[in-house]
């Protein structure tokens, strides 16, 4: 079990601060720890091609994005990579062509008859750019469990958050060890996109080390569908009556799971303060024949979904 998982998820459950943060807060009542934004120069590094290819079997346009990496403190949108050929080969017999829409977006829209495929199908992503002739990646579509229900309860003000309505979804991990999922939550159709809202599951728990197979997802995962408030809105409850909560389970390949858990750990590493780990690069699954390192991941997800009107 990773530290972050321990320090944060184990306790956080809902939108409350991390266990560490709370311990630190109390411990440092007399010792004022503080954080300052500082200007830092980072080492020069080459810009790399980034493939952002997370496809789903949903009935909506599927997009693969090609961009380039940029200096860390360059807080702008990533530079788009246009003019590439992007194709996905399904089970070695069907080719799906993604059309260049500009701005680095390559899109394919499924039709009534033709979704991207079925559980167990094997996909090969093939990209060709002016500089790099062959870029490829493989993924298999794994299954996601059905979401049985979403429960909403009123909870009184405690460490995890203020008085208000909190949600929890119920689903059972599919049988067999090593199923991995990304649980995504949407409040009023807006995706909850904060790094500490990333909710990943390995079987019914956090990671491979603890083998908990075919159980109902453990409480911290079930409860991580509540939005984390912005700093200015810390007193606001996650939901009020009339809100709509959508929960989706996206199946992942093991590679995609490892990638996203590293991404989350790295983005949030600083919040571990004195218990931060050395920075690690997330390992993607995109290869190039020219040997050039390509960043990013190709995954094809089976998606299950449940909507709940909060009342």
């Amino acid at each position, binding site marked *: *079990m990773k530290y972050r998982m321990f320090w944060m998820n*184990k*306790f956080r459950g809902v939108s409350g601060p991390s266990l560490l943060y709370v311990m630190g807060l*109390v411990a*440092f*009542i*007399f*010792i*004022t*720890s*503080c*954080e*300052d*934004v*500082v200007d*830092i120069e*980072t*080492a020069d*590094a080459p810009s*790399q091609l980034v493939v*952002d290819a997370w496809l789903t079997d949903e009935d909506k346009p599927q997009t693969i*994005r090609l961009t380039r*990496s*940029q*200096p*860390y*403190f360059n*807080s702008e949108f*990533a530079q788009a990579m246009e003019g590439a050929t992007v194709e996905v080969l399904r089970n070695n017999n069907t080719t799906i062509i993604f059309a260049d829409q500009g701005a680095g977006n390559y899109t394919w829209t499924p039709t009534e008859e033709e979704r991207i495929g079925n559980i167990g199908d094997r996909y090969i992503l093939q990209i060709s750019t002016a500089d790099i002739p062959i870029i490829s990646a493989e993924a298999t579509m794994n299954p996601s469990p059905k979401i049985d229900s979403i429960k909403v309860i009123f909870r009184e003000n*405690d460490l*995890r958050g203020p008085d208000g309505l909190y949600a929890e979804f*119920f689903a059972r991990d599919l049988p067999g060890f090593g199923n991995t999922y990304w649980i995504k939550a949407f409040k009023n159709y807006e995706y909850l*996109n*904060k*790094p500490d809202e990333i909710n990943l599951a390995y079987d019914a*728990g956090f*990671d*491979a*080390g*603890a*083998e908990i197979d075919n159980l*109902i*997802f*453990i*409480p911290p995962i079930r409860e991580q569908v509540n939005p984390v408030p*912005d700093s*200015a809105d810390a007193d606001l409850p996650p939901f009020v009556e009339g809100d709509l909560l959508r929960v989706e389970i996206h199946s992942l390949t093991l590679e995609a799971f490892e990638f996203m858990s*590293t991404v989350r750990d790295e983005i949030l590493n*600083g919040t*571990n*303060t*004195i*218990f*931060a*780990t*050395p*920075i690690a*690069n997330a*390992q993607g699954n995109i290869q190039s024949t020219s040997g050039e390192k390509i960043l990013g*991941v190709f995954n094809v997800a089976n998606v299950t979904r449940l909507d709940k009107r909060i009342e």
Partner: protein
Amino acid sequence: MTKVVPLILFCLLCASSLLGQEKVTLSGYVKDASNGETLIGATVFVVETQQGATSNDYGYYSLSVDPGNYTIEFAYLGFKSIRESIVLDKNTIRNIELGESTEQLTEVIVTGEAADKNVTDIEMSVSKLDIKTIKGVPALLGEVEVIRSLQLLPGVTSVGEGASGFNVRGGSIDQNLVLLDEAPVFNSSHLFGFFSVFNPDAIKDVKLYKGGIPARYGGRISSILDVRMKEGNSKNLAIDGGIGFIFSRLSVEAPIVKDKASFIVAGRRSYIDVLAKPFLNDGLEGSILNFYDLTLKTNYNINENNRVFLSGYFGRDNFGFGNAAGFNWGNSTGTLRWNHLFNERLFSNFTVYFSDYDYRINFGEDAVNSFTWKANIENYSVKPEFTYFINPKNILRFGGQAIVYTFTPGNAVGVSEGEISDVSLDDRYAIESAAYAEVEQDIGDRFSLNYGLRLSHFNYTGKGNAYTYGEFTPGARRPVIGVQEYGQWESIQTYLNLEPRLSVKYQLNDFSSLKASYNRTSQYIHLISNTTASTPVDVWTPSTNNIKPQIGDQVAIGYFRNFQNNTYEFSSEFYYKKMQNIVDYIDGADLLLNEFLEGDLLAGEGRAYGWELQAKKSKGTFTGWVSYTLARTERQVQGINQNNWYPSRFDQLHNLSINGFYDINDRWSVSGTFVFNSGTPTTFATSRYEQQGYVVPHNAIDTRNNVRIPNYHRLDIGATLKGRKKSPDDKWVGDWVFSIYNIYNRRNPFSIYFRQDGDRVLPDAPTTTEAIQLSVVGSFIPSISYNFKFQ
């Protein structure tokens, strides 16, 4: 232990050939007249022959001379020396009690021994801190601190404020063997790293071996911190206590049978949670945040030849948040020792101890959804030790040790909607044993040697599964390719190491000497931790069929010189240390509750080298020391930093501390400490890229610890107002201690980390990324505490 017996016989055989025939022996204990505490390292000097002996860890000395009339001087710094004429025509026992000097000698002494001991003693790379000195250092929140004080000495560093443990000569924190009355303490910190588990009221002596480690010590590769507890006042009742901002202390010591048996009980408890209560709301009501410890010891003098000691420590840190979560951790140790004199020259000590470190975590408000997790390391040991005082020029020490370990890396049970899943890992077992022999020998007037050999053995045993793993590929965990089941105490893997130790001293003249040492050390248990500061949940693991023991080799040379009749002491030491099989981790390693942990571990090499300088004034009304270390510590691990050497996270090029203590008059004394440390290295991301709308930090050049955070410096001051006895019969004396920590209010960085802005990113706006400097202590911290003594 079968290997121990022939070794001992061999040693005795060697020793007997060194024996003179008609010598007589003067022996006994040296004690403090005021409280009956034995004095460690007091000198017993024969004026006529210019020969001497030093009292050992139990205050025992033994000197063999030709029969005759002698003048013997008993001395201990800060105490009045005693000179006695003794007719030595037969073996003689002389127990001596030294009284504290009435002269205004020094309130603060860095060493409590003979004034020139640093030059004349064979030991090098040893830091001794007298408890009086530790008490003089201006302390954070006024709390006297053993481990933070050690960090003011050359060669001892820490990764940052609030980090637990300490780093010695470039070694990691688990490479220090921390002994409390011989029992190892696996986590020496309270409140993460702000306070150590050692209660200063119960501590007699603190000694840190950074190098030249004698053969009688083993088990860790960087250092030995040997903390000895007081025995308890054997003359009369004494009560010490203190009231501070963070915690209060109370200790009681008294004779049980005067001069025969005594005890000490010392306790501390923090009350942050009590004081913080008014500030705790928004769900923090009912929070528990405290730590406490209890230290106790008792001893009984059975007769001249037999003395027993029983000591123990129990401490705990507690965090709790209503019913929602609880977290606590702590050490407990128990030591039973029996000193036995076979004869005047053969001193022995038999120790039996147990030590345990454990933590417990629980989450969940009800039985339907909960998570509980316990882990611990427990060990039992027997340790016979013999000291044979052959003659004033030769001392032979030999002995052995056997330790039985039980590791419980995690007993964890999760309940999800009433369905129970037990994700506990199997316990692991191991037996560590060692035998050693060591000779301290003077050759002529100028040369002294301490040479020895330690043979250590480790047996990693069942019951449990032993896994074999596939080949390592950079960036990936090694896959399990085989598993074999073993029965209870069935050997899975054994290791045997021969550890030679050598120290040499050459006395240049009365006031200067050259010393050199070499030691090889091996370490069979490892703390699994990849965070900047170690956390209380880090787990110890044994060497296994996949984790090899760490091996350390260190050479050191030093020049020691005193000036002006030992008023000023100066030392300069160079060291070079090589470490094999140090433990490192793959990126994204999963270290807790992972059955296949070994697949996430990497083994590498380490090297550390440096130059340590110390100048010290230990006499007069103004005392203090300056220490400076120029050092480097590096690692090389396959799969990290493109396989190149990189600096350790706690590497500091410069480390300076200046410490001054001044007695203004009988009542007021002031002190100051300034420290300067080079910034420690860390790894920064070079780039960012987007994935599913998230901004991913990325190190495109794949380096480790390639940039430095800013330098650390801090000035602390303190003042003590000593209490006055209103009448000679007054039994109560109270001192006020004032201190200001970080007086010029510097925000010293602990680390710099990168983050994206915490608020929700709108779909049309790019994500802002920034660098944040974390300061654990962000302002100056004043404090007042009151200490009292009733005697």
